[in-house]
């Protein structure tokens, strides 16, 4: 052992910091209190299905709990939570897209497949009063996640990190998504 610094009587001593049993829970609860509503909003808009968004919200915080309990916790919990939530939402989107393609190929009409995919999404798509949501429903899950993250104040670099792409790839993805969204909205505006 190295020799120790002699402590001077002037030092301001404080009680040793203690972690009570269950403090991991407290840490996760604090993060949940702070971020669960905005994360749920993000997930709900990205997967367009309230029940699925609830499941993904739970999974996201379960993973945070796993990290904290095993001694590896994120330095920036909000960014970490969005990153995990984005990945979960996008993975789900990819799996769903595969199911829909499969159903369509094997004779299930596309609109039924879409309804199978998510009743809520179908309802959203057919609600003419919500042009923006219906336009967002027509772009890919990762592009949608990126645009919604942008709307929640994340920078391009942070979005790239969240959706697991490089900066240039994310810029291309988001550029195309914004232009496509504008085209869809312009068509909707022209119809009315």
């Amino acid at each position, binding site marked *: *052992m*190295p*020799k*120790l610094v002699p402590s001077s009587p002037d*030092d*301001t*001593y*404080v009680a040793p*910091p*203690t*972690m*009570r*049993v*269950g403090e*991991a*829970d407290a840490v996760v609860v*604090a993060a*949940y209190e702070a971020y*669960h509503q905005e994360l*749920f*909003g993000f997930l*709900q808009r990205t997967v367009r299905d309230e029940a699925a968004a*609830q499941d993904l919200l739970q999974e996201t*915080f*379960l*993973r945070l*709990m*796993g990290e*904290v*309990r*095993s*001694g*590896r*916790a994120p*330095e920036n*919990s909000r960014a970490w939570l969005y990153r995990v939530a984005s*990945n979960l939402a996008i993975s789900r989107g*990819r799996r769903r897209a595969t199911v829909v393609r499969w159903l369509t190929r094997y004779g299930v009409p596309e609109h039924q497949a879409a309804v199978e995919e998510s009743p809520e999404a179908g309802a959203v798509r057919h609600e003419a009063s919500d042009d*923006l*949501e219906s336009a967002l429903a027509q772009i890919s899950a990762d592009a949608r996640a990126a*645009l*919604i993250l*942008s*709307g*929640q104040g994340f*920078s*391009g*670099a*942070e979005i790239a990190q969240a959706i*697991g792409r*490089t*900066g240039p790839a994310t*810029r291309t993805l*988001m*550029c*195309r998504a*914004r*232009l496509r969204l504008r085209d869809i*909205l*312009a068509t909707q505006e022209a119809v009315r």
Partner: protein
Amino acid sequence: MTTHDRVLELAAGAIDFELTAPERRTLDDHLSGCNSCRRHVDALGADARAIADHRAVTLSLATSSAILARVIITRRTVSPVRLVAIAALLALLTLAAAAAGGAVLRWLQDDRLTFVVPSPPVLEGVSPTPSPAPATGQILFEDGGAIFTIDLASGAVTRLADGAGPSWSPDGSLIAFTRSAADPQTFDPKIWVMDPDGGNQTQLGAGWGPAWSPDGLRIAFSRSPIDLGDLFVMNADGTGILALEGGSDFDWSPDGARIATATGSGTAELGLVEADGTGRTRLAAGQYPDWSPDGTRVAFVSWSPNPSIDLVDPSTGDVSTIAAGVGAAIGVAWSPDGSRIAFTSLDTGDLFVVPMTGGDPVRVVEGVDTANAPAWSKDGAWIVFTMEANGPEPPAPDIWLVRSDGSGALPLTDSGTARGPAWRPTAP
């Protein structure tokens, strides 16, 4: 693609990303003379605002509480340690690379680094360039809830203890680390120290994320992995705990008198606290502080107006920029001789080295997932760092090694759970 299409693409990109100066000129020049594009660009901006303003469904209190309860009570088994250090291969490669004088890795068409076992070069009247010395020494790291060292000369991997966040004492004679209770239902992190072979494990007290003072007499730490804005210092035997005004993002000054620490994120504020608890001064807006080896400057990441690597003189508060235009930077590390700074970019995942004599940052590792946490070898020839795989799942970090000139990049682990690499300091 027409000029109009190109301009609209730039305008869409500018919503989330910083344009280069020529891109910005192209955009502004065109918009000043094209009403149609201007209207289109305004509409793109309005769409972005509409997405931001859109109110999402909120969770009811009952549903929200039910989800939280399930998170709290669900017992998760922690995934077993899966360390696959490519140890024997590593030893083989460092030797073979020295013999062959060739790069051990090469870029393949998909831009990913892949192992290429070196073969003797085919020489056509060209003498091989002399190969730099292979990496030697010991690297300490964490993988899946345990602490390991890897000996670069032999490739031997040693599992030292259960724990996380290991940190070498300045002379390399001890390791401090954090260990939580084995029962995942409880969370009770303690700071421990042990010998470099894992022997003499001694618990010091409650705390998280220890870092030794440069004289090895004290340890700074925080209370929680979540940034609660707290920072403590104690003697290396766990006595004399002192609360400082700071956060878990900190770096000791080389003389051990002060600690540079950033609190908050995004709009983080960088400050200096006296290690004896007598005061705090504000330095600049930024985070990820790293002291120069001579103690005259602190490198840090500034976010405003655009991300850059800045230096601040702690005696005057003067700030200068040494690297800009490389996107959001993280993981700043000064080379041991103070001549260079390594940092990583979140935008591109690249690892850069910027010379202190001026000049552009040199990209050392390019376009492969996301690099972070660079740490230099004592001779400044090598950098060890983590690389997080970009994929559909949460971050999967592994430890890599690269020469500081960018050659010889090599993965040391492929578990997807390894992090926190640190070269063993050698006694002066």
